[in-house]
C-alpha cells in the first residue's frame, strides 16, 4: 500500500516537473511579471539513502551538490518504503479502543524488539477517523507508549514515540478495510 502510494506520488511529481518546464520555456508572453533570466541548468540524479529516502545529487566538475527530495505539498521527505521496520495492525496488538496490549500483541512485539537489532526505534501510532481528532491523538499516543514500554522492557532504545491520531491515513476511511489499514503502529529502525 505504502509502496503504491509512493510510486503514484513520484509519477505525479514527474508530471508536475514537466509542466513547470513547459511553463518556463514559454515564459515570453505567458507570464505577466518580468521574465526571469535562466542562468544555468542542472540535471540531477537521485541518490537513495540507506533509509530509503531520496536526495537530489549533482556533480558540477569539482563541486558536488546534494539536497533531500521533499514532497512540495507537505515538506516530507520522499522515501521508498524499505526502512519502515514494521507496520503492526492495531487490531492485533491492542484490545478494542484501548492501549492495553493483547497477549499475542505483546509477545509479537517482544520478539520483534529482541531480534531487530537497530540502535534505536521510532514508534508512531495511528487511528482511523472515527471519534474526535483529539480523542484519536490521545489513543494513538497511549498506544505508541504501550509499544515503547515493550521495547524498553527488552533493553531496546526508543528515540521517539508519537501519536498522529487520524491525521496521517494510508487508506480511505470510507471502507472497513481502509479504516483497518489506518489503525496501525509504525516502527522505524534507526540503524
Amino acid at each position, binding site marked *: 500500500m505504502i509502496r503504491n502510494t509512493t510510486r503514484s506520488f513520484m509519477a505525479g511529481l514527474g508530471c508536475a516537473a514537466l509542466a513547470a518546464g513547459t511553463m518556463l520555456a514559454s515564459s515570453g508572453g505567458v507570464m505577466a511579471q518580468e521574465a526571469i533570466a*535562466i*542562468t*544555468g*541548468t*542542472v*540535471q*540531477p*540524479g*537521485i*541518490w*537513495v*539513502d*540507506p*533509509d*530509503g*529516502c531520496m*536526495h537530489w*545529487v*549533482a*556533480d*558540477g*566538475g*569539482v*563541486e*558536488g*551538490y*546534494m*539536497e*533531500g527530495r521533499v514532497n512540495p505539498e507537505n*515538506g*516530507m*521527505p520522499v*522515501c521508498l*518504503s524499505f*526502512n*519502515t521496520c514494521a507496520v503492526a495492525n492495531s487490531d492485533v496488538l491492542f484490545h478494542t479502543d484501548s492501549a492495553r496490549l493483547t497477549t499475542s500483541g505483546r509477545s509479537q512485539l517482544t520478539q520483534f524488539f529482541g531480534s531487530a537489532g537497530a*540502535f*534505536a526505534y*521510532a514508534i*508512531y501510532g495511528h487511528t482511523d477517523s472515527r471519534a474526535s481528532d483529539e480523542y484519536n491523538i490521545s489513543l494513538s499516543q497511549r498506544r505508541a507508549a504501550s509499544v515503547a514500554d515493550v521495547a524498553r522492557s527488552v533493553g531496546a*532504545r526508543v*528515540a*521517539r514515540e*508519537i501519536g498522529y491520531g487520524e491525521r496521517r491515513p494510508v487508506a480511505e476511511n470510507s471502507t472497513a478495510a481502509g479504516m483497518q489499514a489506518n489503525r496501525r503502529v*509504525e516502527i*522505524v529502525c*534507526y540503524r
Partner: protein
Amino acid sequence: MSRITKLSLLVGSALVLSGCVGAIEGVGLPRGDGPPLRAIGQDRGVDSQDLSTLEAGIYIDPDGCHIWMIDDGLEGYWSRRRDPVSGLPVCTPVAPPNSIIGNISTSPGIRDRVPRL
C-alpha cells in the same frame, strides 16, 4: 621578476590547473544554445560513476543530528538524514557531535588534504 611576468605566470598556471582538473574531472559539460548546464547526475571524472551508487557514512552534527556524508574523490556531499515516516531529523546519540561513523569514501582513488586551522 616583473609584476607582469608574475601575473602572466599566475594566469598561466591557473589555466594549466583548470585544464588539468578538466581532464581529470570532465568539467567541460556539453552546452547548446540555451543556458549552461552546471551539474549533472553523474561523475564523469577519473572516478566516474553514476551518483546513485554513492555510499554514505553518517556525520553527527554539532546539535547531535545525523547527516549523510559522502566523499566522492574531488566532490563531497552532505544531506540531512530524516525519518522516512515522520520526516523528523534523526538525532540518536550513536557517537559524540562531530564524529563520523561508517565509511564515507566511495572512491579512495583521490587523496585530499583537509585544511587545518
